[in-house]
């Protein structure tokens, strides 16, 4: 927060450098550069198959890069595993919502708190006092984040997530991601499948959530108006290459962007 700790200025800072990913003969990302500055919300748009999800996956560690690097908060994380990246503060949601369907809302959310527990998994079986304290702290954190969605999830804590509406499932997924206490949140089309009302509700809530948790975000989205609302900085991807970059207002006027999007429709 202060000048005394120079490292905190890098909190949530992400740099993707000349990242290339090939699937067989197809180049999903071609020497792509991207920067997410700490505390900012950066958007990525592009037609289907332009490499947006691949981008999220190389940052999360699911897809390895063929060349290039991923630098998080000043450290090269290119070789780190998915759980390792999660535990240093990179959280994510998935394009197709991925929850643990047999578990309740609260149980799903608490899975995201795994790295916050100081007591071991073995301690959880024998219910040590330290675990109870840990549990209490994490439940309170969960309540705090769940409360950000008003009364959408709070009355449904014990409901199995399989019974929830699509939008509520997404809210659970986002809460689970925030339970990691991340400094960077990757959102892969978070509004996909939501109606306009729900999309806007989420778009209104996200900036506050991110600010309160001192977290930056990289968001991939189709809905241009939402990107314009949320992001200060937007990258436009097509065939794995950046075709435009800048403020949302400038980007939509770019002729290359118009061509890429019109070409699809």
């Amino acid at each position, binding site marked *: 927060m202060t000048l005394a700790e120079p490292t905190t200025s890098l909190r949530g800072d992400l740099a993707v450098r000349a990242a290339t990913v090939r699937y067989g003969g197809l180049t999903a990302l071609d020497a792509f550069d991207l920067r997410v500055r700490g505390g900012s919300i950066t958007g990525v748009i592009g037609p289907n198959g332009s490499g947006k999800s691949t981008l999220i996956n190389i940052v999360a560690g699911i897809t390895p890069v063929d060349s290039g690097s991923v630098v998080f908060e000043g450290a090269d994380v290119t070789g780190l595993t998915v759980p390792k990246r999660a535990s240093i503060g990179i959280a994510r949601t*998935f394009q197709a919502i991925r929850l643990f*369907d047999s578990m309740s809302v609260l149980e799903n959310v608490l*899975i995201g708190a795994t790295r916050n527990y100081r007591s071991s998994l*073995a301690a959880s079986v024998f219910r040590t006092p330290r675990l109870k304290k840990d549990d209490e702290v994490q439940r*309170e954190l969960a309540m705090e984040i769940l409360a950000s969605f008003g009364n959408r999830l709070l009355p449904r804590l014990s409901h*199995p997530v*399989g019974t929830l509406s699509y939008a509520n499932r997404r809210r659970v997924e986002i809460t689970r991601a925030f339970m990691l206490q991340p400094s960077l949140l990757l959102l892969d089309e978070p509004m996909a499948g939501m109606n306009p009302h729900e999309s806007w509700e989420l778009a209104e809530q996200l900036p506050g959530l991110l600010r309160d948790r001192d977290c930056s975000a990289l968001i991939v989205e189709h809905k241009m108006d939402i990107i314009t609302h949320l992001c200060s900085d937007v990258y436009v991807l097509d065939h794995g290459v950046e075709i435009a970059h800048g403020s949302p207002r400038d980007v939509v006027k770019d002729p290359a962007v118009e061509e890429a999007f019109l070409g699809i429709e």
Partner: protein
Amino acid sequence: MSKLDMGKAAVFADDGTPIDVATSPWARVKQVLALRPVRITLIVVGIVVLFVMPVIVPSQYIMNVIVVCLIWIPLSIGQNLVTGNAGVTVMGQAAFYAVGAYTAAILSTRTEIPHPIIFLIAMCLAGLVGFVISLPAVRVSGDYVFVVTLGLNLIVLDVARQWIDVTGGAAGTPGIPLFTAFGWVSRSVYDFYWVALIVAAVCTALAVAIGASRYGRTLTALREDRMAAEASGIRATAPRVWIIAVSAMMGGLAGALLAFHLGFVGPSSFDTQVSLLIFEMAIIGGLGSVRGSILGAVLLIALPELLRPLQDIRLGLGGIIIILLMIYRPNGILGSSSTSPLVK
């Protein structure tokens, strides 16, 4: 609702209404009684029956059947922890059973080590074998564990048959003394019932505790969506290796029980068919259900024992039950509807 209240509202009655948890222990007991009268009554009756069992069971033969059921319970529960809770298909529980049984047989016939300590050694040794075998296997992929554990079963069986100096080969190790602990000697199956009951109860309690814990939830998360679990910061290897080790420890305890119960250990008790039988117990009872594991063990052991003609077709009987279950109740007899079926 204050913030603290919301945190505690995670306790719900069966109809879904939130409950304020009573603070004093006695009020808590009354509250639980009022909420779940049937369940509490059943548990109390069950515990009483377990305690008066040696008095009410008329024949030594039936007592024998009960003790054999108790010996199989740790095996079935261990299998279910790995296959049901963690979703890793293992097919070699008999290997750990064998390690425990031979450890108990050899130590009790050749050394003066106190018998309770022998149980602990048998448990740890089986657990160690489970740990070592699953470490490389789980890393590669879950399915690989199936092949590796089946292979382990065959190896252990071969060692038991061939390493005659130590195991007695096909003739086995006879002459295992009566179980003795702190001056008390288990002179009959009525006495040994208590030993088997304690072991089965400890394994049951441990399995219930694991299932209800954060560790249990971690295993469920890995089973249901490994990618989402890993993206939530869960490492996929360690929790699954440990659960295989725990299940192997239970197998080791069952083996030690078998050794002291029979007074003899031979390789035929640890055939791959035995692993298959244990696998069937877990499936039939219900994946992820501790009560189911117990029921599965009792069904596949006691039924064929009591209905003698069924004995020779025990495995086939299990197979028929499984096929019927897969059609009518894919989650097993007591499997929770939320547990994902083995075959998705």
